Structure formats: structure tokens, C-alpha cells
């Protein structure tokens, strides 16, 4: 138990010490939320009076993506490249405790991000439909999906290539995933693709849960569930431990 808690605490400390990771995990989501809530340049879906009501669920989905895919994926990629994972292989830590520590680290990041975003959104006049328990389920499924994607890249690409690809994917999933730009405002085929992306599915699900009057998201739950199972499974198959 001591090994697990020390491992999780150390990994979290290393992540929070890293300026770029903090930028992606906290600064960018908060900046997007504040900017687009105050300056109404983005389109919002029909029936939304206040931009913040549409933006907050999407920004929460973005936070999940930044912790579970970007922070986890980039740090794990470099740990693989620097031989840390290889070295851990000859300690008694073991893979299951390593995975548990990574999950704990991502959950801790999510709690920090979620609190900051909810507080900022409340200041901006956000008035959620509080079905928090269901939102937690959606966030966990999203974390599994994005974490799996992040680890597939981290476990197969070199550290710097992984860094570039993960950041590129982050931008792509952000723009095409209904997080700040509503899916229905994207051109036809792009909006269909967006619905099949993990980012599109998670933001659609969070919209339904947290915004009154949002369209119901039955198919989005299915898409999210498929990603949450398939991506971690792919990671366990494809992940290479050695540099």
C-alpha cells in the first residue's frame, strides 16, 4: 500500500511541477471558458441563452481529455523513452500497482481541474441541472477512453513524436468534438465524424446531463462506452515498456 500511495503522490507532484502540463490541464480550459463566455463570438446551439451554459460541459470534457490523454500520455511517453518504465520492471512495484498509481494520479488531476472549472463557471453565471452522479460516470468513462488513447500513443511512439502527435490530436479532438463549437454548426460530414470521436461523445453526454433542453444522447453513451473499452484494451495490446 505504501508503494502505491508513494508512487501516486510522486507522479502527481512531478505532473504539477511541470509548467506545460499545467498550461494544458488548467490554464487553457479556464481561458477558453472565460473568453468565450464573455466575448460572444462563437455560435451556440438553438435555445441556449447564456454561452456559459453550453460551454461549461464542453470545457469539463476538455479537462478530462487534457488530464487523461495529454498529461498522462506525454509523461508516460517520456518515462518510456528515459527507461523509467524499464527500470521499474526490476523493482517489486509491479505493473498492477503502476497502473493503479497512474489512475489515481489522473483522478486527482480531474478533481483539481473540475473544482477550478466549476468555481470559475459559477462566477460566470453557470446554472447547471445538477445530476452530478451521472456526470461522474460520464467523466470516468471519458477518462478511460482518453487514457487508453494516450497510452496507445505513449507506448508506441518515441517521446518527442508522441509529444507532437498527442498535442495535435488534442487540438483536433477539441475543435471537431463539440467542446467549444457545437457539432451541429460543423459542416455535414464533419459533424457525423465528430459524433463518433471520444471528445464528441463525452461532450454530448455531459451536455445532456448538465444542460436543460439539450438533446438526449443515447447514441453518444454507446460511442463513449465503446471507446472506454476499446482504447484501454488496445493499450494493453500495443504498449511497449522498453524505450
Amino acid at each position, binding site marked *: 500500500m*505504501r*508503494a502505491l*500511495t*508513494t*508512487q501516486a503522490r*510522486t507522479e502527481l*507532484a*512531478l505532473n504539477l*511541477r*511541470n509548467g506545460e502540463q499545467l498550461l494544458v490541464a488548467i490554464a487553457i480550459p479556464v481561458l477558453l471558458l472565460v473568453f468565450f463566455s464573455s466575448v460572444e463570438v462563437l455560435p451556440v446551439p438553438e435555445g441556449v441563452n447564456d454561452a456559459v451554459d453550453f460551454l461549461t460541459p464542453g470545457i469539463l470534457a476538455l479537462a478530462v481529455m487534457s488530464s487523461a490523454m495529454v498529461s498522462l500520455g506525454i509523461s508516460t511517453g*517520456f*518515462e518510456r523513452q*528515459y*527507461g*523509467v518504465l*524499464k*527500470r521499474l*520492471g*526490476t*523493482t*517489486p*512495484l*509491479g505493473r498492477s500497482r503502476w497502473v493503479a498509481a497512474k489512475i489515481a494520479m489522473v483522478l486527482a488531476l480531474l478533481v483539481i481541474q473540475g473544482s477550478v472549472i466549476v468555481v470559475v463557471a459559477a462566477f460566470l453565471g453557470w446554472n447547471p441541472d445538477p445530476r452530478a452522479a451521472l456526470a461522474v460516470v460520464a467523466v470516468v468513462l471519458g477518462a478511460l477512453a482518453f487514457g487508453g488513447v494516450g497510452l496507445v500513443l505513449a507506448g508506441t511512439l518515441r517521446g518527442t513524436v508522441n509529444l507532437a502527435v498527442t498535442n495535435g490530436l488534442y487540438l483536433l479532438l477539441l475543435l471537431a468534438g463539440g467542446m467549444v463549437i457545437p457539432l451541429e454548426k460543423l459542416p455535414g460530414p464533419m459533424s457525423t465524424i465528430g459524433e463518433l470521436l471520444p471528445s464528441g461523445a463525452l461532450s454530448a453526454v455531459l451536455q445532456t446531463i448538465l444542460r436543460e433542453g439539450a438533446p438526449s444522447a443515447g447514441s453518444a453513451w454507446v460511442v463513449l462506452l465503446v471507446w472506454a473499452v476499446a482504447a484501454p484494451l488496445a493499450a494493453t495490446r500495443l504498449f511497449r515498456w*522498453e*524505450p
Partner: protein
Amino acid sequence: MVRYGEVRAVDGVSFRAERGAVTALLGPNGAGKTTTVETLEGYRRPTAGSVRVLGLDPVRDHAAVVERIGVMLQEGGVYPGIRPEEMLRLFASYYDDPADPDLLLERVGLTDRRRSVWRRLSGGEQQRLSLALALIGRPDVVFLDEPTSGIDPAGRQIVREVIRELRDDGVGVLLTTHDLDEAERLADHVVIIDHGRVLADGTPAELMASGQADQIRFGAPPGVAVASLSSRLGAPVVEGPPGEYVVAAEATPVTVAALTAWLAEHDLPLADLRAGRHSLEDVFLRLTAEADARRRDDTTQDLRPGRTRRSRRA
């Protein structure tokens, strides 16, 4: 034997390393040292043959083995943004009865660097941290892959002292090196490998005493009249590289006196004189040269028409 696809990285490497002794795997780059050590650590599964560490199978009994071994990889193995103190405490949490991180930092001379981030440490400091990490679990056996490469002389001294202390505490130490001097100074037992095969195996003294018949080697200006010297000494004298001579005779006081007298008569300076024992370097160079020659012969024979063989080196 360990194969990587078509390549036999290690083939028929067989040796024992004892507790309370330092065993050095000595060989040039690409000889198969790291492959051998990583097989012992459980990273590679041998294609054929068997490996036991503390009587256990490093792959099958992995969980039991890792409790009792300490590993220093050739490079890396540490979180780039971590501090030495933090890393040692992290690793200490993996073991039931770890060593004291502060004492270990002191032992490897990193106490005043304990709060510096790993990527800002010098190469030698990084090596010493890796060594400390190998020792944090109070191991019975340690595997050190090139423990002194890229390290400054003071750091090298520290690493060697720690290795000697480990041996005195009864720990089995297996290290790899391509530094002959290091093997000669540090090892109780040297295994010379090249191209994945063991060329020789023994204590440094045994290896240096073995091999060629008695000889006297000396340095003098190039082009000395070897025929004349040879008839005076009653033994063949040959000039190897210009200015380096070998007399095929036992180094008795009489022979050595005759040699120096002859040089004095011809007014020749004596640059250096060695008798009897070879240095480990002599042994190593001779063995690897012989192995190379044998391999060349094999390849020539295999190039007969109708038979082709591709040979690749790891």
C-alpha cells in the same frame, strides 16, 4: 542463447558469479554483455539454455527475484523531473526493509545535490544516483551495466569503493565493462566475452598467467639488430610494432642481465621492460584477435559454391 530475430546476440555464454565476489563481464562494444545481463535481470527470455539468479528463474520467478536484486541500467531509468532524494524515497517505498535514503545519498556523494532535478545532474552524478537506486532494496545480488562509463575520476573512485564494500558485505556483484583496467582492479573473477561467446574465464591473475609461453618484452629504438641479440641470448627475438621487441625466453636474471648488457654495448636506451606476467590487456587483445581470425576462416570456408550463409553481428 539469446536471439534477436536472425541474430544470435549471445550464444553459449556460461559462467557462475559467486556471492561476496565481483564478477566482471569484459568485452568490446556489441560483445553481448548487456544482453547477458538483461537476461539475468529477466528482461529477455533465453531462446535456449537456462539462467538462474539466487537459484530462481528470473522470468518465471520474477516477483521473488526482483525483491533481492539491484539493477543499474546502462543509461536512464530515472524520471527526468525528479530530485535524487525524492527518487530514492520512492524506490524505498517498494521494499519491506529498504536502506536509509539519506545514508545512501551520502555514500555516493550526492548529499548536496539531493534537491537538484535529475536532468540538471552531470553524467557522473546521474550514474551515482543509479547506483544508489540499485542498492536501496538491500539486494543480495547487484547487476551494474557499465557503472563507471561517462563518470569523472573522483566519481569513479566513489563507485569502485562502493562496489568493494558490497563485496565485503557478501553481496554478489556482476558488472560489465569494456575498461580492462577497471576489470583488473575491481574484479575477483573476469569473464571475457566477444561476439556473444565466452573467450576466457578466471581470476585476473589466472588469466594473466595463462596463454603464451614465457617471454620478455622490451622497448628500444626501432630497427635493432635482432639477429645479433638473438645469438647472444640463445633465444628468438622479434620486433613486433616498430620499437617493441619480444624475446621468447624465461625472464631469468641471467637472460635479463645479458639483454641489458647487449643494449649497453650498442649504446641503446631501454624504454620499458616487462617479464613473465601479461597484463589483462595483452590477454584480451590476443584472445579477441584469435577469435577474429577463427571467424574469418569459418566464413571463407562457408563461401564455397552451392552454400551460402549470411552472417550478421549483434
